[in-house]
């Protein structure tokens, strides 16, 4: 069972847009998908999008928050009714400091995102 002492839990309906490109990053800005499905899109310009569809266990909002950006560079929309854990950056760091599993999940998730982007770059080479 997930035990994140600092996280809030929210339910979101299908088609709800959590955030859009350019939205200010503040408050609860890191999200973990407990159940449901979300779509994360990155704007490549000229109408092109890079789509990262995420299932249960995915984290989103994390790399924008932890890299220190002040505005979103991705857009997140729920593709199904979903349950999500939410953290502020400070609370997330406190939870990963005491929850090794969450820390490992975070590194594993970010690694897979990086691998997907690198793969896309190779396909365009």
């Amino acid at each position: 069972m997930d035990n994140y002492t600092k996280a809030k839990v929210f339910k979101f309906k299908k088609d709800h847009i959590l955030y859009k490109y350019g939205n200010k990053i503040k408050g609860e800005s890191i999200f973990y998908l407990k159940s449901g499905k979300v779509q994360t899109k990155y704007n490549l310009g000229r109408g092109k999008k890079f789509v990262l569809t995420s299932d249960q266990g995915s984290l989103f909002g994390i790399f924008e928050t932890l890299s220190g950006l002040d505005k979103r560079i991705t857009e997140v929309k729920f593709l199904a009714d979903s349950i999500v854990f939410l953290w502020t950056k400070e609370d997330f760091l406190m939870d990963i400091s005491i929850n090794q599993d969450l820390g490992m999940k975070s590194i594993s998730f970010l690694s897979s995102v990086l691998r997907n982007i690198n793969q896309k770059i190779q396909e365009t080479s």
Partner: protein
Amino acid sequence: MGDYMKKYENIMKLGFGGLEAIDDEIIDTYGKSFKKGEFIIREGEETKDIYLILRGTVIVTKEINTIKKVLAILGPGEIVGEMSFFESSTRSASCIADEDVVTIVFTSETFSDIYKTHPRWLYQILESLSTRIIKTLNLLKIRMN
């Protein structure tokens, strides 16, 4: 500046929270150096260690259609090798020391110990990965346009 300060000068720059957050034993126990031109990781091998770069620069290359392409140049505060560590796959790229490089090595055995005693190091890894994702997305945008 004394030897002690010199030794940790780069680490302090990484934002680990200053000397009070650094355990001398960790550097002595888990530190590993590489000479210029030496392979830190070879593409295709089945090793799993993670390297946190403390000093020097590392070139990340990948062989595509028999041609070696430079994917990234990484420096202090950045990590290499994390993808194989967590995804049970062979090394997807090679990492070569571009100058004399000093790293800290996380193995599957030591990672848990370091995590428990110094969780700040995990944040360093997460921040490094996040920054690399942003840079790589920017590169993708350039390539696609």
